């Protein structure tokens, strides 16, 4: 064998071994304040190995009914997300008024699963407002994130862990262009009946081309409510309040992340 090929092969092998070893630190390594990212070799291998176990779990889980019965009690609802809440929340507030629920709306402009996942803001909000139902609308700021499944899965999982057993509905982003996988990631990671896919809905857009107009956002919220009633994992009382909007009991606004 040509000795230079031998040299190149050992070089590639040494580099691969180096990155495989580093990938055991799945959350990256901090060196002098710098976050050193690691590869996904070990994670990918674990995922492959875990498939059978997951399938077994899923099979037994099939026995359990995934849909809870209609809950008619008054809810303490926390609605968090990005700027899309400007259009959605007032319409949800109208439903809350009609059905005796209390709504706290938290808009964090320009936020994403990354922003929420790397801070403790969601836990703080849960501790402060004690919701027994959560709405989330996030993903519009992540339509084009590369390698999103690996990049954002940990943050998404952290958010889900923070929500714990509290029933939730995640409203997917209103795509204005093809995404790089945020909807697929949400569909895979969120519980059955907990994710409303908005990507296929039709919207009238405001001047910025991204946000639905107020009227279109209100119809969007109506569709989500109908979907919860028919397909949601945790349906609760949301009788039609007629036309119009209302104001949430409390509105909290956070500035865009820097």
């Amino acid at each position, binding site marked *: 064998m*040509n000795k230079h090929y031998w040299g190149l092969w050992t070089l590639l092998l040494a580099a691969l071994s180096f990155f495989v070893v580093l990938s055991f630190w799945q959350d990256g390594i901090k060196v002098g304040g710098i976050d050193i990212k690691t590869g996904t070799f070990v994670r990918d291998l674990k995922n492959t190995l875990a498939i059978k176990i997951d399938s077994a779990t899923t099979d037994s889980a099939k026995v359990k009914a995934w849909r809870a019965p209609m809950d008619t009690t008054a809810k303490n609802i926390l609605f968090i997300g990005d700027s899309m809440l400007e259009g959605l929340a007032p319409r949800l507030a109208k439903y809350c008024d009609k059905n005796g629920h209390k709504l706290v709306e938290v808009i964090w402009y*320009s936020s994403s699963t990354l922003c929420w996942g790397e801070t403790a803001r969601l836990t703080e909000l849960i501790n402060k407002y004690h919701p027994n139902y959560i709405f989330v609308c996030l993903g519009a700021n992540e339509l084009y994130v*590369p390698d999103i499944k690996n990049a954002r899965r940990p943050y998404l999982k952290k958010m889900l862990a923070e929500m714990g057993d509290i029933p939730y509905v995640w409203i997917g982003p209103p795509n204005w262009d093809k995404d790089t996988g945020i909807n697929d990631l949400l569909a895979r990671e969120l519980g059955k009946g907990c994710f409303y896919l908005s990507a296929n809905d039709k919207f009238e857009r405001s001047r910025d*081309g991204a946000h639905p107009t107020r009227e279109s956002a209100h119809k969007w919220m109506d569709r989500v409510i109908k979907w919860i009633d028919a397909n949601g994992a945790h349906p609760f009382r949301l009788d039609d309040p007629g036309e119009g909007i209302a104001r949430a009991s409390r509105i909290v606004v956070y500035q865009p992340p820097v």
Partner: protein
Amino acid sequence: MMLNAIDLTQLLSLFSFNRDEPMLFTSGLFWVLFLVFLPVYALLKSQRHKMMIFVIAFSLFFFYKSSGWFFLLLVATSFIDWWVAQFIDSSKNRTERRIALTVSLVLSLSVLLFFKYSNFVIWNINELINGNFQPLDLILPVGVSFYTFRTISYVVDVYKGKIQPTDDYIDYLFFLSYFPCLVAGPIVRARDFMPQLQENKPATREMIYGGLFLVMLGILKKAVFADYIAQYNNIAFGNPSGYTGFELLMAVLGFTMQIYCDFSGYSDMAIGLGGIMGFDLGINFNYPYRSLNVTEFWHRWHITLSTWLRDYVYIPLGGNRKGKVRQHINLMVTMLLGGLWHGAAWTFVVWGAGHGIALCVHKLSKPWLDRIESTPVTRFFSWLMTFSFVAFLWIFFRANSFHAADQVIRGILTDFEWAYLPVFLARRSTWCIMLAIIFGLHFVPRHVWDRMRDWFINVHWAVKLVIFIVLIQLVLQFASATVQPFLYSQF
């Protein structure tokens, strides 16, 4: 316990066709497989026939991983065209030779047209007659545009007597399926490649490590620069109405550099892999944004494509041999087809037409332009005009529709404020730095790159390893780095 849980089907799925995850040179799986490929190749290199069979098997697997069973289409095309070329060479009857050539061209182009343009035709019919024909659920076999052009050039060259056809089908299958050129070129000609294959010279140290240097340069361009700056460009082009003129102009500049890094980066990787395997695949991009006019741009941009279009479209149409008017018509037809080759949409046709018009205008005004004295000032303005024009046309190449292209252009012309500059720089500083680096590197003289390559070839193995590791770490760092989607300066 863990081993018991291994699902063999899941493990095998890593090696089976996945529509969403084609195997590219930037994927980890490719490099793991290349690590297995390399020692076997090195051992077989001196035994030409065995080496070819092994490389063909790897290439076909590479094709299968990205396009599924369509790799059989490549095998069929290669067999038909190998046989047709043999027939053309052996036949003395001109009519027979012509018929054989026509059959080969029709077959090759039919496959290309069917997979690439069927839905475009359906869309146009729907638009014209207000119809409701459903688009076909087609997978575009990876690299079909590239290998079709390579097989056409082979058959045409044999027909014209420029090359002798190969007697050995394995030689031809090797040429057409050769995995470094399969996905995105370069469109290497048989007349340049076949003699190297026949000779099968051993790869030298310069070829192997010079190849690795090029592969690394390609990875830097594609996986670090292009993929990172693409994020903002995608956001802005995906929703132009949400951005100011300044932001849109930055997206246009960003896309101008992104497409160069993307195309040329992938070409560098292909040429570098060819070098590692002991084959010289030529050059495909020669600092195109240094061009002082559009004609020069096309001598520097995607060279193997532009020379292919020249040799197999422009010259057969008559080139410049049938008068000025015909020359300009030929030029326009060539560039329109070149535009359509890049993608099945009218925006690509407009992009090609824009370049065609510019080439005609440059040819017409050349006598006048030649009289202008060449000074640093005139050269600078020539460069600025050329660069701006090329960047302007990229808007049509990138935009999803004419409406989106119109929004980008309108935004730049009517909603442009320098006031956004400091906010943009502050919020998207990494993006700006990266754009500046790409721009700067583009103007580094060639001899500096050559010296760097020579230095890399001769430097100690351990230094090479460190450089390689640093590069891959950069890829990992930037793979998950994101660009701020909205400035929200109004809040």
